[in-house]
């Protein structure tokens, strides 16, 4: 039972980590807490819903599920499109709102409140377009769970969620450490002034950061929708766990957000053995507070800045 909850915690933690990595990347570059990040996950899930339930049926992509999964080619095609779309939304929000405020030298509080406003806008647009009901990507499709050793039951979809999240994170790691743009992103997070002095066009790095953060948030949102039903408030509910994960890992650190996400996901799922699931956000924060009391700089915080 506990082992099963632990495995479900890894599933949820993978999704939280995808969101928290974007949050921490944006914070690392811009020193800006993007309260709209959870709603970017919502936007990704609903772009996915629109594609698999409205657009792709029209252009004749078949609905049949692939292998043991609950979804088929429609979802395979929708996934990258949703990521690209939310990259665009994130960049748009930056151009329309955040960049203008940055250039005026607005304070951190103004930026944070404007992000809260942006999050409301995204959520309300979703609400207007799709309504407030719980929705499934593929209603009525149920696939049998697999039995793992020690009696752990897991659906093939959930295995795939962990796999896709892991693949995205490995890709991000390779990008940040082995490409010129990725290294420049880490350099900019370390010291933006010196990055400019070195000739790095930091505004372009900011664009890359939003694009990656948005894409990963969308991936998290769609993967969440593959696991359970989506609703317009889902991203907002994710916001506290995202921050808990990012802070827990030492804000600004990508590997910290990954570990933080997994820790928070596992804590949340384990807590359901004793508590109602509605307490999950509280569990995320209590877990974060306890760990920070022991290690105030976060799990990986401290010695050096940056990603």
């Amino acid at each position, binding site marked *: 039972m506990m082992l099963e909850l632990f495995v479900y915690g890894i599933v949820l933690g993978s999704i939280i980590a995808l969101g928290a990595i974007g949050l921490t990347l944006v914070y690392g570059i811009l020193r800006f807490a993007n309260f709209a990040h959870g709603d970017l996950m919502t936007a990704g899930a609903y772009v996915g819903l629109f594609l698999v339930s409205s657009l792709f049926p029209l252009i004749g992509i078949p609905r049949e599920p692939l292998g043991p999964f609950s979804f088929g080619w429609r979802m395979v095609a929708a996934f990258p499109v949703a990521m690209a779309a939310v990259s665009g939304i994130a960049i748009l929000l930056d151009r329309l709102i955040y960049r203008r405020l940055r250039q005026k030298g607005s304070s951190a509080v103004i930026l944070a409140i404007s992000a809260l406003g942006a999050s409301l806008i995204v959520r309300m647009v979703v609400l207007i377009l799709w309504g407030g009901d719980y929705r499934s990507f593929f209603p009525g499709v149920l696939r049998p769970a697999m039995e793992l050793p020690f009696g752990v039951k897991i659906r093939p979809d959930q295995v795939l969620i962990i796999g896709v999240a892991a693949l995205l994170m490995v890709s991000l790691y390779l990008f940040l450490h082995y490409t010129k743009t990725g290294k420049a992103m880490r*350099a900019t997070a370390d*010291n933006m002034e010196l*990055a400019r*002095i070195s000739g790095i066009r930091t505004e372009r790095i900011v664009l890359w950061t939003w694009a990656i953060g948005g894409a990963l948030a969308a991936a998290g949102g769609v993967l969440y929708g593959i696991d359970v039903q989506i609703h317009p408030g889902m991203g907002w509910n994710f916001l506290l766990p995202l921050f808990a994960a990012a802070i827990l890992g030492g804000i600004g650190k990508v590997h910290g957000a990954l570990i933080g996400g997994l820790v928070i996901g596992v804590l949340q799922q384990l807590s359901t053995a004793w508590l109602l699931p509605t307490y999950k956000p509280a569990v995320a924060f209590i877990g974060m507070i306890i760990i920070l009391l022991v290690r105030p700089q976060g799990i990986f915080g401290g010695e*050096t*800045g940056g990603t």
Partner: protein
Amino acid sequence: MSLLVVEGVRAGYNEEVDILQGVSLRVEPGQIVAIIGPNGAGKSTLLKTVFGILRPKEGRIVFDGEEIGGLPPEVIVRKGMSYVPQVRNVFPSLTVQENLEMGAFVREDDYRGRLEEIYQVFPDLREKRHQKVGRLSGGQRQMVAMGRALMLDPKLLLLDEPSAGLAPSAVSAVFDRIMEINRRGVAILIVEQNAKEALRLSNYGYVLTMGRNALEGPGEELLRDEEVGRLYLGRG
């Protein structure tokens, strides 16, 4: 033709106050030129203005025959000038080699040969090339900072107080490296608190006070100058 010409430059951090109140200087190709003067004279401000971090409000800055006053640093660096700030001059969470690669960011060509040359000038860095710079000593960080700036193979290197905050042994190592860099043909404009050492290795020196030119002359001459000695070299 002079490599760098600064003429009557006024600049500051805000609209009201000008830290530089009409400063002029020249750097010839291959020279080391030192700027010395008391705290608050505007030495660092002058370097920042030359490199485009601050905009000159008045005056001309000509580099390699081209007017560069008002251009941003990411453009100026592409013209063959590099700058090492006094503080926060490395990327601490990047490795030594990644720091050097960032110095070559604007290069489109293969810079591996240049990397090799940098490791020849700073042999310590080769050993530590896969270590994070945040873990190095102050002197080694200063080497990384200079190495980063040199990756471009610049015509002119701006150094802001390279010896500040270093242990005495590290100070002489840094000055040795500066001489070595210059021998390889890079002109250097250096701001230093350590005026005696800076003038000793310089072809020419300028003394700034209150944002204005006070004195100038060949390094050796300024070293012998009574007034300079009394004011800045601690000779009573």
